[in-house]
């Protein structure tokens, strides 16, 4: 699980690059590599809305840190109260030189068990805590997992965007195809469509409240709607800070076990 604050940055260098024709792979790589600071901290607010309009809320404290090429993430559930204190620690590694992916190292701390458990770091296409987002949707999905194509160009809310298609190489992937509307100037994803194994539209993504925070473009609000179930998840980021000092000891298994991460 990489940085859960979706990276939607465009820098001046990237802006210059837009004047050149680019391949789908180049655009995908620039979206993938958008910088997001050496550290970040904030509170993630998740609202789940079912087809009858009934809502459920989750609040999660999030800390991230880059340690060399390793992205470290700590998440601590604050609400709902029955899961408060459940914490995740994940180390994400870059792809190998041959393009193959490296499994994350992941641990979960369960306060009821007073125990840290090693968990599998390979499943990225599962739903994130009952939401309509998968871990892949919230992180930076490995480029080696998809074939990319530019389907066209279109304005989204008056902003010029490429329509970028990412087709999963794995025929068994739960999401067979992702189509993103990528801001030509900033490489921000403004909206997306996700297709299931049978290539039927399954989910739509709308990114809102896109701001520069400490110089990094960030989408502070995203809404993912499962059009097949009419279930919706609103994902908001609050009190977001980049490049401010984060307690490095938070990113250790012992910090989880000691319930040290606030």
């Amino acid at each position, binding site marked *: 699980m990489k940085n859960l604050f979706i990276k939607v940055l465009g820098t001046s260098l990237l802006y210059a690059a837009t004047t050149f024709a680019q391949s789908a792979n180049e655009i995908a790589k620039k979206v993938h590599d958008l910088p997001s600071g050496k550290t970040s901290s904030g509170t993630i607010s998740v609202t789940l809305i079912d087809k009858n309009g009934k809502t459920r809320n989750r609040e999660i404290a999030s800390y991230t840190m880059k340690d060399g090429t390793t992205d470290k993430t700590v998440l601590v559930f604050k*609400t709902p109260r*029955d899961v*408060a204190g459940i914490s995740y620690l994940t180390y994400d590694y870059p792809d190998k030189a041959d393009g193959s992916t490296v499994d994350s190292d992941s*641990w979960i701390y369960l306060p009821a068990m007073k125990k840290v458990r090693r968990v*599998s770091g390979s499943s990225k*296409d599962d739903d994130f805590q009952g939401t309509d987002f998968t871990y892949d949707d919230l992180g930076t999905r490995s480029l080696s997992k998809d074939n990319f194509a530019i389907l066209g160009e279109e304005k989204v809310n008056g902003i010029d965007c490429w329509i970028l298609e990412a087709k999963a190489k794995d025929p068994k992937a739960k999401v067979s195809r992702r189509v993103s509307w990528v801001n030509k100037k900033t490489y921000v994803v403004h909206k997306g469509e996700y297709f299931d194994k049978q290539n039927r539209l399954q989910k739509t993504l709308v990114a809102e409240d896109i701001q520069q925070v400490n110089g990094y473009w960030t989408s502070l609000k995203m809404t993912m709607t499962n059009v097949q179930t009419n*279930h919706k998840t609103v994902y908001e980021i609050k009190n977001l800070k980049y490049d401010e000092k984060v307690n490095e000891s938070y990113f250790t298994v*012992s910090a989880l076990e000691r*319930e040290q991460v606030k």
Partner: protein
Amino acid sequence: MKRFTALSLALAATICAQETVFLGSLTSQAGVGLPNAHHNKGDFLLGQTIFDGTIKSYLDEAMVYVNGQIVHDALGAQSTNGSSAFVADDGTYALKLREAYIDWKGEMLALRIGRQIVSWGKADDIQITDVLNPRDETNVVASDYNESKLGIDAVRLSLLTEKTQVDAYWIPFFTPSILPLAKGNPLHSRVFPEEVDGIGINYPEKYDDFELPEKRLSKSELALRASTYTSVADLSLYGFYGWDDLPLIRYNPNIVFGDGEDMPATSYSIDVTGEYKRMYMIGADAAIPAGDFVFRLEGAYFPKRHFQTDVNSQLFKYSEDSRPASKRKNQVLGLAGLDWTPSGGWTITAQYVADGVIDHDSDLERKQFEHQATLSIEKSILNETLTIMASGALDLWDFSTASELELDYKLTDAITLSLIGDLYLEGPDGKEGLYGEYRDFSSVTFKGKMSF
């Protein structure tokens, strides 16, 4: 005045740096015996309302943690070990202090002082190296291995680096497990029958009727854990020098003869006493991730552990002066397990556990070798509002089984309703094995919990 202002500012800054969190829950549960529960059929086997409160207060690198419970038990099943709970005489109310500690962390050292619950090992719901905390043994209906753990009064000094952790424990006061001593506890008559074959049995009525270790420095417990966490595996080593949490039972015949020589006995009963014995353990475990799987290994060696001798050996084989309540034997325990998390919100856990006593002798109450397999399957659906859990354990020697099916439905974010079925079955030919003795506790439990 300036000094006062400075002091006020300093105090204000201190208060601002402090963050206090309260977490509470109210649980109400009732369990009733299933038709195969024999004389417990249709009887309530569980009836509790539990208020659980936790306060966590962070101040810079320090934290105070307190967790306590107020329990109302409709069956009067609560009892105490003199340390973990204050219990009403009739067993209907209990006040429990589960944990209360101060935690401080420096650059590389950390200290935790006070009552604490510690989890060792990689096994799920099976005790191998997880020997530090005693347990509340008063309930088997809808019971949870982790919730049954009791805090130990300890000092824990830790050495921490990015990938390693070494914890040293000094446990000055021994805390025994809580036994089902309350008369209202459905387990009481099973564990402490008043008579067997017409012979009266005089069991201890209170926790301090057992021979507890004296409260002396020399009776302390010591423990050590060293762990490392890497991409390849998580590894831990353990050492423990302490007390076994359950007492060893001594059976003494109590024969009253008539007046005069060669007169027959006029009454015959058995007096039961219990004593706690020292225990040593060294152990190790590993968790190895591999794709969708995590393999878990755990092993422990208990040198010269005291094992209970059976009642017949005690009463009929030995004279009063040489009647041993226990014999010392070496024990080896091992576990191999795997967690599988395939796509789609499934969690599947399987374990194999083997438990052997070296140089076993026929006086011992337990078998020389016991082994079992466990399987647990969990699936969350409806955006995690409904969770279905099925778990079971199969005794591979006598084929007795314990199984549980649990449905948890989230009515709201705060309220969870649960339906739990527990089924204990003997093996073929009525063999009790590991789980057959609980057959009278097959039950169905309804539980409601609100977290706030």
